[in-house]
C-alpha cells in the first residue's frame, strides 16, 4: 500500500512539473500577429524604388513568350516582354508597342499597326516592324511548336509558310520601319485579342539566334524589367529595364519571384512581411484573412474569368438523351457547392462567365437547382423514380461513371455530384485519374461518359469559351477540346456568324442566343466560376487585380520605407490554443 501511495505521489509530482513546464513554455510563446506587421511611410504620391517579392507554388519553365503559356511563366513574361496590344486595368484592348489601335480595312481583313517611336529592347537596340514580323514568324514556325498556333491560323499564307513552300507569311507585310500590316483569310473579331496575347510579343532575332534552345533562360524583351538572376527551383530576380519606354515606370527597382513555395510557408512569410502579395491560400488562411478586420483593407476577392461544370458525353448513353442532361443540370445544388467550398466559388448556370460579351444574368434557359424540373425531365427521358421510404432519395435507375482529376479537389466535386444526382436516381461512380490520362482519354470520342471539367480564358471574348468548348469543329479523333462531344448545327452557324460580326451590339446578341442554346441543351451542367483572393501588404499601393492577366504586378508601387507595427509579446495561450494544446487554454 505504501509503495502504491508513493507511486501516486510521484506521478502527481511529475504531472505538476509537466503542467508547470507547459505553462512556462506557453507563457513565453509569442502570440501570432492579429494583423499586418508592417505599414507604409504614408506617401501620397507614387514613388520609385524598393523590391516587390511574390511567389508561386511550382517551378518556372522558362521565359519564352512564344512557347511558354502557363500561369507561372506568364507572370514573368508580362514583366519582360510586350506586344503591339495589351489590356488596360479594366480589361479593354489598348495599344502597347503600337502607337494607336490598328487601322482596319473596310473588308475587315487587313490590320495596319504603327509602332511607337523610340521603343528599344532591353539590349538597347531599337525595335522595328521587321522585329514584329520575325517574332510572329518564329512563333508560327513548325520547329518552334508553339501552343499559340491555333490563335493565328486565319493569317493569310500561314499554311504555305508552315509547309515550307514560302519563306515568309504572306499575310504579314512590313511597310516601313515602323509600320506592319496583317492580312486575314476571313474576317475575325478575335484577331486583335490574339495580337494582345503573349504569343505575339516581340523578341530580338539576334538574342534567339545567340541562345537557340536556351533562349527561354536568357530573355530579352521590351518589358519594364530584365532578368537579373535565376536560380532554378528557388527564385527569379527581375531588375528595372533602363531602356523602358514609359517615363517613370516601373516603380519598384526589383521584383523577386520566389519559386516552389507552398501555401502554408508562403502565408507565414506573408504574415511576417517577407512576401508582399499572395494570391493563393489554404482554406484556413483564406478564412483567417476574411475574418480579420485588420487585414480587411488589404485583400480583394473577385471572380476569375473561367467556367467549371459537369460535362456529359452526348455520344454515349444515357447522356445522348437531352432530358437526362437537363435533369442533371437541374439537380445540381450550386448554392450548396458554394457553401461547401467556403464561397471560394461563384455558382453559375450558363456557359459564359460574367464580364464577357453575351453574358446575361437572366439568360433564357439558365440552369438552376430545381428538383421538380429535374425529376420531370427524368420522367420525360423514360425513367420512373420511386421513393418507397419517402426519404427524398429515390431508388437508383441509372449508374454513370464520372472521371475526376486526382487529388482532394476533384474528389470533393465528384462527391458533390454524387450526392446531388442520388436525388434523381442516378448513381455516380467516381474514377480518379492522373491529369495526363484525363486529358488524353477525355479528348477521344465515345470514351469518357462524364467528367468534371473547366476552362479559363485565353482572352476576354465569348468565342474563347463557346467556340472551343461547344463548336463541333472542336471535335477530333484525338485531343478534342469539345469534351462533351456536343454537336448542334444551329449553334455552329450562330458561332461562325458571331465570330466575324463587326457590330459589337449585334455580336453580343448572337452570343446571348448561343449561350442560351447551350444552357438549354445542357452538354454540361454548369456549376461555378472560381473566385480568387489577392492579399497584399499595407505598403503595397495601387494594386488592383488585372481582369485578364493573373498576378500582374507591373503597375503598383511600394510606399517605403515601411515601418514595423509593434508586435505583441506574451499571451502564448493564443498561439498554443491555435495548435490545439489543451493545457494552454485558460
Amino acid at each position, binding site marked *: 500500500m505504501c509503495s502504491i501511495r508513493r507511486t501516486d505521489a510521484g506521478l502527481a509530482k511529475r504531472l505538476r512539473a509537466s503542467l508547470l513546464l507547459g505553462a512556462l513554455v506557453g507563457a513565453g*510563446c509569442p502570440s501570432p500577429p492579429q494583423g499586418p506587421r508592417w505599414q507604409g511611410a504614408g506617401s501620397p504620391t507614387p514613388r520609385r524604388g524598393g523590391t516587390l517579392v511574390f511567389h508561386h507554388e511550382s517551378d518556372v*519553365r*522558362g521565359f519564352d513568350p512564344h512557347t511558354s503559356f502557363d500561369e507561372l511563366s506568364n507572370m514573368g513574361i508580362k514583366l519582360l516582354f510586350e506586344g503591339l496590344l495589351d489590356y488596360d486595368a479594366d480589361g479593354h484592348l489598348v495599344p502597347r508597342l503600337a502607337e494607336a489601335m490598328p487601322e482596319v480595312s473596310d473588308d475587315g481583313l487587313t490590320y495596319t499597326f504603327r509602332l511607337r517611336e523610340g521603343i528599344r529592347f532591353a539590349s538597347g537596340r531599337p525595335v522595328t516592324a521587321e522585329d514584329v514580323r520575325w517574332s510572329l514568324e518564329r512563333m508560327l514556325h513548325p520547329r518552334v*511548336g508553339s501552343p499559340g498556333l491555333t490563335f493565328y491560323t486565319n493569317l493569310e499564307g500561314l499554311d504555305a509558310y508552315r509547309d515550307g513552300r514560302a519563306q515568309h507569311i504572306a499575310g504579314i507585310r512590313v511597310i516601313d520601319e515602323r509600320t506592319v500590316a496583317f492580312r486575314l483569310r476571313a474576317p475575325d473579331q478575335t484577331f486583335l485579342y490574339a495580337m494582345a496575347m503573349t504569343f505575339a510579343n516581340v523578341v530580338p532575332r539576334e538574342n534567339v539566334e545567340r541562345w537557340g534552345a536556351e533562349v527561354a533562360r536568357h530573355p530579352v524583351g521590351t518589358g519594364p524589367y530584365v532578368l537579373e538572376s535565376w536560380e532554378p*527551383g528557388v527564385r527569379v530576380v527581375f531588375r528595372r529595364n533602363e531602356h523602358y519606354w514609359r517615363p517613370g515606370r516601373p516603380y519598384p527597382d526589383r521584383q523577386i519571384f520566389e519559386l516552389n513555395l*507552398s501555401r502554408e*510557408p508562403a502565408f507565414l512569410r506573408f504574415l511576417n512581411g517577407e512576401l508582399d502579395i499572395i494570391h493563393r491560400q489554404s482554406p484556413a488562411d483564406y478564412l483567417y484573412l476574411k475574418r480579420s478586420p485588420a487585414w480587411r483593407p488589404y485583400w480583394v476577392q473577385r471572380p476569375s474569368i473561367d467556367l467549371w461544370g459537369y460535362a456529359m458525353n452526348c455520344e454515349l448513353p444515357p447522356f445522348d438523351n437531352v432530358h437526362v442532361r437537363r435533369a442533371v443540370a437541374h439537380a445540381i445544388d450550386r448554392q450548396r457547392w458554394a457553401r461547401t467550398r467556403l464561397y471560394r466559388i461563384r455558382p453559375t448556370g450558363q456557359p459564359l462567365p460574367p464580364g464577357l460579351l453575351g453574358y446575361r444574368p437572366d439568360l433564357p434557359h439558365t440552369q438552376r437547382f430545381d428538383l421538380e424540373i429535374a425529376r420531370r425531365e427524368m420522367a420525360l427521358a423514360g425513367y420512373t423514380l420511386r421513393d418507397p421510404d419517402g426519404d427524398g432519395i429515390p431508388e437508383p435507375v441509372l449508374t454513370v461513371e464520372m472521371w475526376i482529376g486526382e487529388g482532394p479537389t476533384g474528389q470533393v466535386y465528384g462527391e458533390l455530384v454524387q450526392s446531388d444526382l442520388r436525388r434523381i436516381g442516378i448513381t455516380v461512380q467516381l474514377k480518379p485519374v492522373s491529369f495526363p490520362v484525363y486529358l488524353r482519354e477525355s479528348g477521344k470520342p465515345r470514351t469518357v461518359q462524364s467528367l468534371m471539367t473547366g476552362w479559363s480564358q485565353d482572352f476576354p471574348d465569348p468565342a474563347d469559351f463557346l467556340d472551343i468548348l461547344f463548336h463541333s469543329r472542336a471535335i477530333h479523333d484525338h*485531343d478534342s477540346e469539345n469534351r462533351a462531344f456536343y454537336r448542334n448545327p444551329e449553334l455552329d452557324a450562330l458561332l461562325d456568324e458571331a465570330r466575324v460580326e463587326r457590330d459589337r451590339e449585334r455580336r453580343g446578341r448572337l452570343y446571348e442566343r448561343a449561350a442560351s442554346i447551350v444552357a438549354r441543351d445542357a452538354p454540361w451542367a454548369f456549376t461555378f466560376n472560381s473566385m480568387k483572393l489577392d492579399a497584399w501588404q499595407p505598403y503595397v499601393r495601387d494594386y488592383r487585380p488585372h481582369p485578364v492577366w493573373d498576378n500582374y504586378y507591373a503597375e503598383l508601387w511600394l510606399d517605403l520605407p515601411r515601418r514595423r507595427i509593434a508586435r505583441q509579446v506574451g499571451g502564448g495561450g493564443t*498561439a498554443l490554443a491555435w495548435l490545439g494544446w489543451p493545457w494552454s487554454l485558460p
Partner: protein
Amino acid sequence: MTRYVLRRLAWALFVVWAALSLVFVLVHGVGDPAAATLGPRAGAEQLREFRRKHGLDRPLLEQYARYVAGVVRGDLGTSFRDEQPVSRVIATRLPRTLLLGALALAFELVIGLGLGIFAALRRNTIWDTGTVALTFVGISAPTFVTGLVFLYVFAFLYGWFPVGGYGVDALDHLRHAILPAFTLAIFGAATYARLMRSEMVEVLGSDYVRTARAKGASRLRAALAHAARNAMLPVVVLVGLQLSTLVSGAIITEQIYAWPGMGRLAFEAISALDAPLVLGVVLVTAATVQAGNLLADIAIAALDPRVRMTG
C-alpha cells in the same frame, strides 16, 4: 572480396536496368506526355509536333532502345517540361537534397544513437520508459504535422529559423536546412534509438562486457568502447539501406519547407508526366540504393571481424 564486390556490382547494374525499364513502360503507358506538358489548350497540331520532336510518335520499343543507348552514352535526355538536359536539372537539385539528407542523417544518428544508449544504460527506469515513449511519438507523428508545427512555432512565432526556402549563400542554405532536416530526422532518430536500445540491452548483458567491467573498465567505457561497437552493426545496415532517401529526398518535407530538392523534383516530374525527368530521378535513386546496400555490406565486414566476404 574483389569477386564478391564485382558480383554485387553486376547485380546492382541489373537491378538499376530492371527498375529503369519498368518505369519506362509505366510512364509511357499511363498517359500522354504531350498533353500533360502542353496542357488542355494545345491543339491537335501542336500535340503532333511535340510528339514528333520528342520521338513519342515512334514505336515504344524504338523509344526504349534510343533511351537506353543514350543512358549508356551518359545522355539522360531532355526534360519535356524544362527543355533542359535531365542531367543538368538533376545536377542542380541533387546537391540540395544531399545537404538536407546529410544533415538529417547526422541528426538521426546523434539523437537516435544517443537516446538508444541512454535508454539502455537506464534500463527499466522512468528515463528508459520516457525515452521509449518518445520514440513511439517520433515514429507515429506524421511529417506533415510535425513539419507544419515546427514551421509555425520555431520559424514563425519565435523566428529562430527562416520560414522555409533555400537561402542565398552556403551559410544561408545551411541555416535554412536545419529545421527541415530536423523534421526529416525525427522518424529515423526514433527508429535508430529503438534499435540501438534493444541491441545495447542485449550486448550489455554479454560475457565480454562483463569481463571488461571485471577488468576495471568503467560502466560508460564498457558501454561505449565495447558494447556500442557491436550494437552498431544493425544500425549500419539500416543506414546503408536508408542512403537512398538522402538522394530521393523527402517529398512532404521538401514541400512544407519549400526546399527545392530531388523529392520535389520527382513529384513535379511525375505530375507532369515528364518521362525523361522521371527516369533520370529513378536512375539516380536506384543507383544510390544499390550503392548504399553495397557500402552497408562492406561496412559490416569492416566492423565485425567475424564477417568475411566470400565469392
